[in-house]
């Protein structure tokens, strides 16, 4: 079977404030996979995402993301992955399309690419001219995902993407994530929402004590 690994972590140790937040984590994610990280608080899920985003250097072990060694090329990795945490990284005084255009422009995206990103997240028609501060939490999440598309993120790292959303917002988010999966996006999702995130995932991985314990 032909493989195209986007993430290859082998026995990675990452230290945060002298505490080994990752203690020998090994994980491979293939292109097009949606991997759900599950585990209790403090297990190392967020640290794993931040490491893959190039925000943390591996203290030991081998960490390759998008073909780049994280020990050397963290800045280059940052520009090619999209990390979406509890905040959306949006400017609330700007409109949806201005936000998506801004983030797209940081990588030189064309106006066609911006329009496609808005369209893919269902924001092109009614919401593109609306200031972000007037959007619901679910619509803001969609806008943030459109920004990831506009800036051509090849790997989406989603940390508790359903947090802070009401039921309608969660349903809305699931719809766009399903569409992204159908379009071939590669994602690593850390979530306590096992029913929702599990339904989206192509594979589930248990994280505990800073290690990847098992994969299903």
């Amino acid at each position, binding site marked *: 079977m032909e493989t195209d690994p986007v993430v290859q972590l082998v026995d990675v140790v990452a230290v945060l404030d002298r505490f080994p937040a990752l203690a020998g984590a090994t994980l491979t994610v293939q292109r097009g996979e949606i991997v759900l990280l599950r585990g209790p608080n403090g297990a190392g899920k967020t640290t794993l995402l931040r490491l893959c985003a190039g925000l943390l250097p591996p203290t030991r072990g081998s960490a390759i993301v998008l073909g780049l060694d994280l020990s050397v090329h963290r800045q280059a990795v940052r520009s090619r992955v*999209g990390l979406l*945490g509890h*905040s959306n990284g949006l*400017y609330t*005084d700007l409109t949806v399309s201005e936000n998506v255009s*801004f*983030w797209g422009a*940081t990588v*030189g995206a064309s106006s066609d690419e911006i329009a496609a990103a808005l369209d893919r997240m269902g924001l092109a028609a009614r919401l593109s001219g609306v200031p972000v501060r007037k959007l619901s939490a679910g619509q803001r999440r969609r806008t943030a995902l459109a920004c990831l598309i506009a800036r051509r993120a090849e790997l989406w790292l989603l940390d508790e993407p359903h947090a802070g959303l009401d039921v309608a917002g969660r349903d809305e988010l699931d719809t766009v994530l399903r569409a992204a999966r159908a379009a071939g996006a590669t994602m690593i999702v850390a979530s306590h929402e096992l029913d929702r995130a599990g339904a989206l995932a192509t594979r589930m991985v248990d994280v505990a004590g800073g290690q990847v314990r098992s994969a299903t």
Partner: protein
Amino acid sequence: MNSLEVTRLVAVKDLRIELRSRVLINQVLPFAAIVMVLFAFALDNDGILDRVAPGLIWLATLFSMLVVVQRSFAVEAGDGALDALRTAGVPAQGIYFGKAIALGLQLMVLEILLFGAAFVLYNSRIAAAAGIGLLITSALAASCGLGLVGTLYGGLTTGTKGRESLLPLLLLPVVAPVLIGATRATEAALGVGGISMREGWAWVALLVTYALLFGIGGSVAFGPLVDDGA
């Protein structure tokens, strides 16, 4: 994307947010105008006001600048946009200079209002035609310096507890050279305080040096400073 393009992008974005939210027009400019009026009430003497007008203009600029700097970083911190910029690998120098340019331009608008207020309220006048060039150049140099140092310290305090009180405590001592230099240059331009035009230009040189030092130092330090919070 290179730092120059990011600089333009961030500056345009910050100015667009300001035009949209109108914080400068609706809050900062009225605050600065009230400060100038209160100075006039407190001193209540045309002779004294005329003499101290340059210092009052620049004091009012510094106080108002605190509001503009806090606003500039509040829009970044509100939904984690600054963190997102850094985690997206956007060059820190571009973010730094873009925000500094937007801040400097807003300060120039503020200074135009403050000089206008001084001409009306304090009866200040430009001493000679040569004073116009000195006044404009010193205001430009001071705005650049204040924009650069304000952005650096705004980035330093963003995300920290008690940043509203921490920013003035850290920033005001550092901008003392701008207060002194800009006040002396303005005194020369307005023909008060016994400062000659030649001396006024020497103070402009100090302002330019200050801006250059913070431009170089800030472009190096801004990335690691904001990365700590990312």
